[in-house]
């Protein structure tokens, strides 16, 4: 069963690129990615560019409406994801807790919908 692990964090809470903490974070992500790959549960996973690069599209009355950024009011933004194939929720939650950003942000774990057929 596949689970999407969405990594949410306030960009202000993340270590600044170039700092020692940043290098440590990158390293920790490397270790985690290695672990899920070795365990055979890794299906996919990527970090995202900062929220400043986001563009939102809506179609209203058949007209696409394009705006800068998301309209989210929340401070925590989606910063990346992992798609893992786990036995059950407990296993997915165990991996979620190991994602380095979980220490200052939050990981939303959602099962991928199983379509019939």
């Amino acid at each position: 069963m596949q689970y999407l692990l969405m990594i949410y964090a306030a960009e202000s809470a993340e270590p600044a690129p170039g700092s020692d903490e940043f290098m440590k974070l990158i390293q920790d992500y490397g270790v985690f990615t290695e672990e899920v790959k070795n365990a055979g549960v890794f299906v996919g996973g990527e970090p995202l560019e900062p929220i400043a690069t986001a563009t939102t599209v809506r179609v209203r009355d058949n007209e696409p409406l394009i705006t800068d950024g998301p309209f989210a009011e929340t401070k925590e933004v989606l910063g990346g994801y992992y798609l893992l194939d786990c036995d059950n929720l407990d296993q997915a939650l165990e991996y979620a807790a190991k994602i380095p950003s979980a220490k200052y942000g939050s990981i939303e774990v959602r099962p991928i919908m199983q379509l019939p057929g």
Partner: protein
Amino acid sequence: MNKKDNRTAIIDKAIERVVRDCYGKILSQLTYQFKNLDLAEEAIQEATISALRHWQEQGIASDPEAWLYIAAKRKAIDIIRKNQTHTKKQHALTQHNKIIENDSFVTDNSSPSFQDRRLELIFTCCHPALETSSQVALTLNTICGFSTDEIAKAFLLKRATMAQRLVRAKRKIAKARIPYAIPTADQLEQRLNGVMGVIYLIFNEAYYSKGSQYLSSTALAEEAIQLAELINQQLPHRAELLGLLALMQFNFARFKARLDKFGRSINLKDQNRQLWSSNRIDKGNQYLNAAVALKRLGSYQIQAAISAVHSTSETFEQTDWLQIYGLYQKLQQYQNSPVVQLNAAITLAYTQKPLAALNQIEKLEQAGHLNQYHLLFVAKAFCLKKLGDNKASTMAMKTAIALSDNQFQKDYFQQELESWFKNIS
């Protein structure tokens, strides 16, 4: 009612009882085997209908649990047959036929030897991925076999609200695949804490029960204790679990004394201690001794120890307040809530240190967490009375009366106040 109808009604009642007694066990076993709670529930429902029909005619089976289990399992396989597409069906049936062949039941109908899987299902129902209120409802519904209606009434909710809560929780279990399993060793302790929290919520719901005319509060409290005992059988020597069992036994001992004839709660101070169950108190002490011997202290054990001191004291006046004060100090290391701090302060007043107690209570009042809490002002009034400041004491009690939302309690505080100062004014 004629004789035949009467007999039918008696048998119906007996069957209902039999089904409830083994419901959780069979449901857990089927859920564990088929990895599908909905399917297991549907199968037991159908098996119960068959049981009613058969047992009405031929009398209740000699081993009703085994009978129901086999019937429910066959129903489950029938349901799978009906629901699956042809190709999937072939695969699923081979799997399930294996389950049947491997089952000693089919060859030997006399011994209900299937393993108890209730603990697995308890961990599913109390999974932290579910809301606490859903955890409580699910546990009562699946493990204890209470109907949606009964649970709704016990918690003073509309049936539809409770039904929706249960459906949502069950859907999440299925869709997010919350496992039917005992957590791994490194998760076990934390998850067990969650389960104990749910059990204590159920117990307290019974203790402070408002829905008691529907679902007997004694039955609900018994269920909570049985759940804890069930876990204790499979996960023995856990200090906090034993502590919880002790705490529930001590509190259960006071069940008959806790309410007056109008169903209003009576303070510990005013309870008739003759009504306390010495049998329960003995059990509580046994559990507490076993817990303390493990030398892993925790908040349930300390709360049980506090309850033990009260339970073994012949009168309220003879209570060993110094010991209780020490225990509250200890409890604050594990559970430092304002209410625990207030209780510690009240105890201090009983140890003849009303000034120190008053200082602590005023500190709590100023901190602002409890400044709308009526019991803080009762405690304050008590300390001021002891210190001889009758005017301030009366004022504090009047604040308590104003803050209480319960007329019986308001009257009680008023009487207390009058008894304190009857010779003065």
